[in-house]
């Protein structure tokens, strides 16, 4: 199954064209053009991954990242940054972003990062499921020795 992606960038042409390219590759993609719009989408729907521009006119990308992590901690975030904001992107990774890419990004590299982020999310979800299940189910053998 392909991940559900939210692309967040105030440069509409960029966001919509990137979204179209990802849809051609069978990803499910939604776009948002501001921090507020992005958070509204995050609250309403479950995305596996957010591609987030560091510079947004209403809120900084870092601030939006922090809000995303509060609302949906398992949602992965890939930050897109221009040259001047590399420091911000590094701060983003410390705040929980999966990785960052410089704009304009190479498609192959972006797709590879999307797939890596998605697999990390799936692994984390699996670990959480296993932890929950192990609370209630031990080995069948131990059930036979229940004194």
């Amino acid at each position, binding site marked *: 199954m392909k991940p559900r992606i939210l692309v967040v960038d105030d*440069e509409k*042409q*960029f966001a919509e*064209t*990137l979204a*179209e*390219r990802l849809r*051609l590759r069978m990803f499910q993609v939604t776009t948002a053009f501001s921090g507020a719009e992005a958070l509204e989408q995050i609250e309403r729907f479950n995305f596996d991954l957010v591609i987030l521009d560091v*510079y947004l*006119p*209403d809120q900084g990308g870092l601030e939006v990242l922090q809000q995303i992590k509060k609302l949906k901690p398992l949602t992965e975030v890939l930050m897109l940054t*221009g*040259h*001047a904001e590399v420091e911000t992107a590094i701060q983003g990774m410390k705040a929980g972003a999966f990785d960052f890419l410089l*704009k*304009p990004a190479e*498609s192959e590299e972006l797709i590879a990062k999307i797939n890596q982020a998605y697999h990390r999310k799936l692994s984390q979800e699996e670990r959480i499921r296993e932890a929950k299940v192990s609370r209630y189910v031990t080995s069948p053998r131990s059930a036979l020795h229940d004194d």
Partner: protein
Amino acid sequence: MDPQDPRLIAAELGVSLFGEVSASLSHELNNVLSVMKENTGLLQDYLELAAQGRELDQERLAELAGRLARQVERGRRLVQRMNRFAHSSDQPSARVELGRLLELVARLFQRPAAQEGFSLEVVPPPSPLEITTRPFVLENLLWRAMRHACQSGDGGQVLRLEALPREGGAEIRLSPWPAGAGREFPGPEEAALLELLEAGLEITAHRPALCLRLPGITG
């Protein structure tokens, strides 16, 4: 050289202005390149699909070509703006048309203003208004005034720049000027720029505006 010499202060502020404007314009140009890269990538995607047997949508291709052309035009305008700004420091003193100068400064400041939630409007003078002044110093002062207005004021507003003739020179108005702005304007840096421009500054209380009074000839 005396560190309080207005020419030295103006020179340092000038370097700072070049840095801010360059950073802003390069960010916008990077956006143009990013959009173009994605659109050319999309074109390549369609061509690959066509090679696999999918029919090419001619209208879609025409639309993508149109998008690329618009981004090229957008990039061209940005470079033009950058060039005009760079050349404004060619001569310390020059004859300028104030409407065009305000238009340039407003377009350069558009992105920083948007970051603070402001948009800009230039009201041109009723007829071309030329004065002899220090264009780069004037641009610097206007930049600092707009920045102060945006950082001290409430977002969601339109900042208006207008140039008007007055006896012996011209007046530039920036409105609305934020009431009770945190930092006094003009500060020492702006005072140095005003001295070089031989200009006067007033903040009007009624329909609050910053009024910059320029002589017809400077320097």
